[in-house]
């Protein structure tokens, strides 16, 4: 393999792995923002929670990787239901400023709470033995964990897509995103739909945060540090969509890795410029609804 | 405000067409509103009445066709440009500045009309003439009580009156009223009807309405819109007698 091709393959690989993490975390945000019209700046806190649950279960309780992952996703989903029922639902369809302030406040509380419980340092993730090291794909070797990430991402996006297109629940979501009042008049229990969708999205975020602990390090200021990334994926992809964030995550993940390799001295500048350009061209995102 | 062309229609559309994917809201609509008209637009739900208003006022761009205000082309004008040409509308669901007072609501419209709204320095209170006129307008419509309270605290019937006042404050030549009595308890709707009846004779009026009593009381000409297409147009007596209208609207089956 020539050098450029090898470099390109590396960039594609690592970029896609990063993209999968971004996607898992952001897809829930996109759907709930499109569905409930609720600006949830605290979404990253759920991803962070997933990361903390995973690392705590593994290091303090010695739980194996896969069950701990599942536990992280479920715990996050449950926590999100509490938050949604108690606080968020009062502000659906309300003023944007309220939602921004409310969720920012929650982020601050999350920062304080996680510092109190887990301390200010980063939580390292020690991947299980069957996922450490390299896998030989024939033409070259790739890190096993990241390959696993890509696989998870691909499987989950397929499941989401099928779920959205084929199940009744998915149909209800699509109808409600399209036209909420019409959906309500047809008898869809939108209140319950919101809660379930929110739980699903937050659970996925928890999963993404847990899986991606190596790429987006788990520390108390996680939600604030990475907020821009998640919002970018949602804004570029479009609200209320599951394909949009996927395309956006791929674009941003790969572009980010590309610039990191080739122009590290310019940092994330190009990414933001790229995002700005896309938002200029398509203010509602690549797959946003008019 | 540029006065309506003396001879020609106050408002006209030619071959107006608009679709949203598979849904067609306007199909070749030819419509004429004469100066001083009292014209009603009726039709079943989903007929495209409000879409028509949006197309005429500039909220929607048509796929084909033309809009003419006072005889001159307006199809590619922005919403605010059309207002400057003399077009004003009200909204089916009250679209007022909710936390502002009724007086403020009307004053804002008058300020736009007179072009003083761009003034960054002089306190708005100094533009006394505008405030007086706004108050007088509210008074004429019987909405001057509680003129300083936030409109969201007013009874809904009163809000609808303020809605009309805001549109009138623009001194329009063409006024589009989108279901002016919609959502108003029957006790309060009488006031609104009276207000509409007392509107100046030279104002060209198009009313969208569901309430048939209101329509037959106010209109001298009626257009019936069904699924984005003009079904029939004529004076009230003709429309009332037209079997097609009955079928579409009142569900009366022909074989009786």
């Amino acid at each position, binding site marked *: 393999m020539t050098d450029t091709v090898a470099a390109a393959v590396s960039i594609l690989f690592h970029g896609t792995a990063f993209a999968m993490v971004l996607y898992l975390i952001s897809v829930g945000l996109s759907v709930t923002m499109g569905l409930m019209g609720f600006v949830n700046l605290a979404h990253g806190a759920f991803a962070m929670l997933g990361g903390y649950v995973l690392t705590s279960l593994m290091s303090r309780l010695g739980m194996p990787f896969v069950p701990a992952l599942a536990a992280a996703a479920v715990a996050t989903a449950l926590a999100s239901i509490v938050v949604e029922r108690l606080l968020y639902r009062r502000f659906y369809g309300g003023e944007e400023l309220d939602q921004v302030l409310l969720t920012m406040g929650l982020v601050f509380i999350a920062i304080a709470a996680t510092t109190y419980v887990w301390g200010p340092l980063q939580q390292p993730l020690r991947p299980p033995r069957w996922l450490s090291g390299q896998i030989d794909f024939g033409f070259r070797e790739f890190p096993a964990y990241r390959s696993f990430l890509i696989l998870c991402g691909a499987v989950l996006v397929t499941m989401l897509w099928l779920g959205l297109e084929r199940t009744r629940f998915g149909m209800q979501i699509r109808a409600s995103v399209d036209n909420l009042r019409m959906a309500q008049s047809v008898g869809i229990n939108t209140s319950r739909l919101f809660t379930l969708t929110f739980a699903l999205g937050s659970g996925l975020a928890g999963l993404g945060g847990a899986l991606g602990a190596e790429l987006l390090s788990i520390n108390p200021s996680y939600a604030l540090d990475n907020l821009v990334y998640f919002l970018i994926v*949602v804004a570029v992809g479009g609200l209320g969509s599951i394909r949009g964030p996927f395309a956006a995550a791929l674009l941003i993940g790969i572009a980010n890795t590309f610039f990191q390799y080739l122009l590290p001295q310019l940092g994330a500048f190009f990414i933001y410029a790229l995002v700005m350009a896309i938002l200029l061209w398509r203010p509602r995102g690549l797959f946003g609804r008019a | 405000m540029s006065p309506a062309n003396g001879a020609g229609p106050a408002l006209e559309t030619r071959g107006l067409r608009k679709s949203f994917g598979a849904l067609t809201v306007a199909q070749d609509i030819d419509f004429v509103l004469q100066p001083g008209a009292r014209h009603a637009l009726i039709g079943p739900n989903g007929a495209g009445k409000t879409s028509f208003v949006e197309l005429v006022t500039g909220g929607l761009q048509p796929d084909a066709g033309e809009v003419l205000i006072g005889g001159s082309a307006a199809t590619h004008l922005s919403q605010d440009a059309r207002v400057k040409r003399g077009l004003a509308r009200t909204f089916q669901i009250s679209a007022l500045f909710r936390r502002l007072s009724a007086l403020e609501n009307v004053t*804002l419209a008058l300020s736009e009309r007179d072009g003083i709204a*761009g003034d*960054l320095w002089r306190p708005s209170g100094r533009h006394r003439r505008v405030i007086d006129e706004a108050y007088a307008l509210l008074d004429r419509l019987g909405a001057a009580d509680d003129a300083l309270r936030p409109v969201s605290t007013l009874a809904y019937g009163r809000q609808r009156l303020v809605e009309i006042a805001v549109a009138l404050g623009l001194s329009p030549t063409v006024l589009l009223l989108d279901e002016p009595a919609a959502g108003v308890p029957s006790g309060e709707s009488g006031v609104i009807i009276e207000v509409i009846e007392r509107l100046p004779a030279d104002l060209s009026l198009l009313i969208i309405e569901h309430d048939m009593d209101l329509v037959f009381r106010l209109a001298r000409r009626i257009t019936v819109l069904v699924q984005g297409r003009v079904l029939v147009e004529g004076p009230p007596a003709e429309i009332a007698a037209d079997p097609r209208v009955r079928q579409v609207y009142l569900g009366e089956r022909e074989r009786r």
Partner: protein
Amino acid sequence: MATEGLVRTGVGAGSGAPADPVESFARRHRYRAAEALPWAAAILVFVLFPDYLPLGAQVLANILFALATDLVLGYAGIVTLGQAAFFGTGAYTAGILAANGWGEPITGLLAAAAAAALLGFLSGLIVLRTTGLTLLMQTLVVATLLHEAANKASFITGGDDGLQGMDVWPIFGVFPFDMFGQAAYLYCLAVLFLCWLAARHIVHSPFGRSLTGIRENERRMRAIGAPVMRRRLIVYTIAAGIAGIAGALIAQTTQFVGLGVLSLDRSGTILIMLIIGGVGRLYGAFLGVPLYMIAQDRFSQIQPVYWYFWIGLLMVAVVVFARGGILGLVARLRR
């Protein structure tokens, strides 16, 4: 806001001659005695708390920043998380000038205002064409872009370490910026006063009233013929300029500029301070900023973690219980 004068003049339903409501409506802009309070308080602080003048200058500069944010957020209803972009641009403009030979404060201030206003105008052209989440996102991206740019252009900005070597000349050649902070405090107070005067005029003008219309119902404003985009752009540009002045004040009085002036934290904090005082009432900034900053000065040293917790809790509480901030509560109590 619109009904400010109402309670005072006792006009209510079914009151006397029709002239009354129009009179009180036309008098809304008149100066009231209570409006002298902030300035009296500021003078008192100067006289009674000479040790706190450096902090005081910071408070005044942040009040100015909050005032600018109020114009955009409270009056025009534009929800943005990117105000720090203009604040930071002003700070770095004044800072870079002072670090490279031109330390004259007032011209530095004007240059900062111009740079920030220009940025406001250009970004406003892009950002203000949308609303809601997209607008929020775009303002965030602009601010983050600038933050990155400032970080990487460390040969001008000093990057992570901050801008070093600022030398700000004495005001009018006579009053030096020293560690006692007297000149700094009065300088900030004077600038705040002038900008406040301008903001007050704007808010009470027909333009300012039309902004509240845009905030309350943009669709309606269009339907009465208002050029909405143009109005928003104008206020966005003006507010950006004022925010730039605030940034320059901070730079000049502390003789330092760090990357934090462009951060999301900055944008968020000024929002919080403003909300506490009350949005869209012109004086929210004067209440919220001192309260927050003094509390922060006292408590955040004790345990930084707890500070985040209490602020977060306060924000949630304000949104759930006291949406209008302190001024909102006061207005509600008066009724």
